[in-house]
């Protein structure tokens, strides 16, 4: 193995480890601030920069870092794909299980450019769909909602076995392993996500495509790869082949990017990942990479008709996706309880890239991915499901990790003023109302300084006809912030007798209840 390739593998490993490290740090330690720049990889993502700029006409400051990636691509080509992208590295790893000649026509390379055109045009019309296909967003989402929960679940199942074994030394061993696993990688608590399995299958699908062809995703589908490919067309660093080349074709077999390296004057910089495999494998040592090469290169030919079709599809998709009632002014989904600090729904969707960082970091695990609750454009955006977990009164982590500002970063003082919905009581199920049984749990856990749940002492008859006094809860609409802890902790556990819906949310001008 020659040096550039060895360096490349080391760099890939380093970035993958950095990614995993930052991923694991996306978890509360009990302090107000998270402390680590966990969204760093997304900050460097120019696809998200461009689409957010187009859809929301604004961009979070962190994204200016992605200009560095654009600049690097202009100089060195698609090194981001070949050397840095953690999904690319994973594709490399899985793909190394199978090495075969490309089976798919290189014409399919253009698919990713068409997807890119589609995403950019739909963002131009105010719909942010890039996050669904963006590789970094996809990877963080898949890790957060599927891979990590599954890993944790498997580990815990093993630990339960050791812990439950009828042998004390096995139990002690189990405790030691548990302590080590907790330090190393286990989450504080087992996460559970709606659709976790589905997002996991999609991710396995992306990885599995490597068995059809190595780096299938990077070659044919990745819209970020397409964007960088376009920049790469003008890159200064170019491949050149010396006279020694006898066109043996060894390079083509190891090329992971459909860059047609065997066609001396038709090497495609837009497809090349600069992985240096061709340089490494060339028996004549005829391949070199350098600045200022005059050798002709292959061009990018997507096809004008196809581009127009993709652009039109992107334009048509926007009104089509918005034919649902949710798009109607004043129509609100009661289940759409957004994280605190979320922008008004339209603006929120223009920014949210469905990366799942907010769900990963949510301290109670209550933030869940939507399916169709927010329409197709809102797929996998965060929604609070208080039955799973409530919004912790003094926690502001979701706003800290949101890469696009769809969820604003709030101070604790600001957050105390933000309502994400309103609690309502189901008197048919509530113990003091329906069953003459004492209970004040919702009031006890209500976190606002002046409690938003107040108790009224009333005398009622119980089943035996005895007169007893119970305290019946009421909601103070002015004070309730919709955090949902009352719903999470309600002892009527299967379908809580108090529940939160989105009405009264601060971010909406129309979803209001009080005068």
């Amino acid at each position: 193995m020659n040096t550039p390739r060895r360096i490349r593998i080391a760099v890939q490993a380093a970035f993958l480890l950095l990614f995993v490290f930052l991923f694991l740090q996306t978890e509360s330690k009990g302090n107000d601030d998270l402390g680590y720049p966990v969204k760093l990889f997304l900050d460097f993502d120019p696809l998200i920069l461009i689409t957010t700029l187009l859809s929301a006409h604004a961009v979070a400051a962190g994204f200016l870092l992605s200009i560095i990636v654009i600049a690097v691509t202009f100089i060195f080509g698609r090194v981001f794909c070949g050397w840095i992208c953690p999904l690319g590295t994973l594709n490399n790893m899985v793909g190394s299980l199978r090495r075969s000649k490309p089976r798919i026509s290189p014409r399919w390379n253009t698919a990713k450019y068409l997807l890119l055109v589609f995403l950019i045009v739909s963002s131009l019309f105010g719909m942010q769909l890039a996050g669904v296909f963006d590789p970094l967003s996809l990877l963080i989402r898949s890790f957060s909602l599927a891979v990590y929960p599954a890993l944790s679940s498997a580990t815990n199942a093993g630990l339960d076995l050791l812990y439950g074994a009828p042998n004390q030394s096995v139990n002690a061993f189990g405790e030691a392993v548990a302590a080590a696993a907790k330090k190393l990688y286990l989450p504080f608590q087992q996460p559970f996500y709606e659709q976790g399995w589905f997002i996991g299958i999609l991710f396995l699908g992306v990885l599995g495509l490597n068995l059809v062809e190595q780096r299938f995703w990077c070659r044919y589908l990745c819209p970020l790869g397409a964007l960088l490919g376009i920049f790469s067309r003008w890159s200064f660093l170019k491949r050149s082949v010396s006279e020694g080349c006898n066109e043996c074709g060894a390079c083509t077999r190891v090329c992971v990017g459909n860059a047609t390296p065997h066609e001396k004057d038709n090497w495609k910089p837009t497809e090349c990942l600069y992985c240096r495999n061709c340089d490494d494998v060339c028996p004549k040592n005829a391949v070199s990479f350098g600045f200022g090469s005059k050798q002709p290169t292959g061009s990018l030919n997507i096809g004008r008709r196809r581009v127009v079709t993709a652009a039109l599809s992107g334009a048509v998709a926007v009104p089509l996706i918005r034919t649902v009632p949710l798009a109607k002014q004043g129509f609100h989904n009661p289940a759409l309880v957004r994280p605190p600090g979320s922008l008004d729904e339209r603006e929120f969707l223009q920014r949210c890239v469905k990366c799942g960082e907010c769900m990963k970091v949510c301290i109670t695990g209550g933030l869940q991915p939507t399916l169709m609750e927010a329409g197709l454009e809102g797929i996998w955006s965060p929604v609070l499901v208080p039955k799973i977990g409530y919004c912790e009164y003094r926690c502001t982590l979701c706003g800290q990790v949101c890469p696009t500002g769809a969820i604003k970063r709030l101070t604790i003082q600001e957050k105390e003023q933000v309502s994400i919905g309103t609690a309502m009581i189901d008197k048919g199920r509530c113990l003091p109302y329906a069953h003459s049984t004492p209970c004040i749990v919702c009031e006890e856990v209500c976190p606002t300084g002046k409690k938003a749940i107040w108790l009224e002492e009333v005398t009622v008859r119980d089943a035996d006809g005895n007169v007893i006094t119970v305290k019946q809860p009421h909601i103070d609409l002015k004070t309730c912030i919709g955090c949902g802890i009352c719903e999470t902790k309600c002892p009527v556990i299967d379908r809580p007798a108090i529940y939160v819906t989105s009405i009264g949310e601060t971010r909406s001008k129309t979803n209001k209840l009080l005068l």
Partner: protein
Amino acid sequence: MKRRDFLRLTALTSLSVAIGVDNRTNQAFGAAPAYDLAVVTGASPQKITSAAIDALGGMTTFVKRGDVVVVKPNIGWDRTPEYAANTNPEVVAAIVRLCLEAGAKKVKVFDRSVNDPRRCYVQSGIADAVKKAGGEVSYIDERKFRDVKINGSVLKSWPLYTELMEADKVINVPIAKHHGLSRLTLGMKNWMGVMGGSRASIHQKINESLVDISMAIKPTLVVLDAVRVLTANGPQGGNLKDVKKLDTIVAGVNQVAVDAYGATLFGMKSSDLGYVRIAAQNGFGPMDTARMKIRKISI
């Protein structure tokens, strides 16, 4: 006495109570200090805690060399100390230090929080203070709850935390606070923090349940933190207007006696608290504060 023997004894004594033998259970074991309660006031939480325990004979009366001790504060809420929702961290740290000085092998501190445990442990200041004092702070591990026979009037059995049940000595360190249903949360209610399962359902019969659970977990010592007390919007508060500074520590070996006295800190009668009344009626402890031997110190 090992914790298990103690449990067995507890079961036997409750049985004897059930068949009508009046037995002040706390006299059945441990040292019998000269005072029922020590009530110390002063500006330094650490000093008044030490003084209160000294007044009862010092920590060596309660903790023997090599003991594994569990100190159980209230770390239920994501609040900083000035909000008086969790036990004062200086009080907890002082007790941990005294236990270690008395020769304890290990001092463990934990609580099954209501809010997120990480935030509760950090924001309460307790995790930090205990670590500095040399104690072991751990989060509740749901695997470590085991069903314990209680045979109480309401609770027949409940999953309780094994680390507490297996400890040699248990020191209860509650904070005195307002509570919407039980009126006040003091020592006996602090045991909810070692109950597993769906513990919220005990609110249906809160007073009976608290007595049942308290008789299943008898502490060696109770140190009630009334440095700051919460007078309304309890048990988690959130409004500094509801916090009153009393700069007081109440210590005793009988948890009914401590809670009975705790009521008086809020201008209430001990009989105003249902669980104190029921416990006293069952002979688990005294509730008439006028008849208690109380050592009052002001420093």
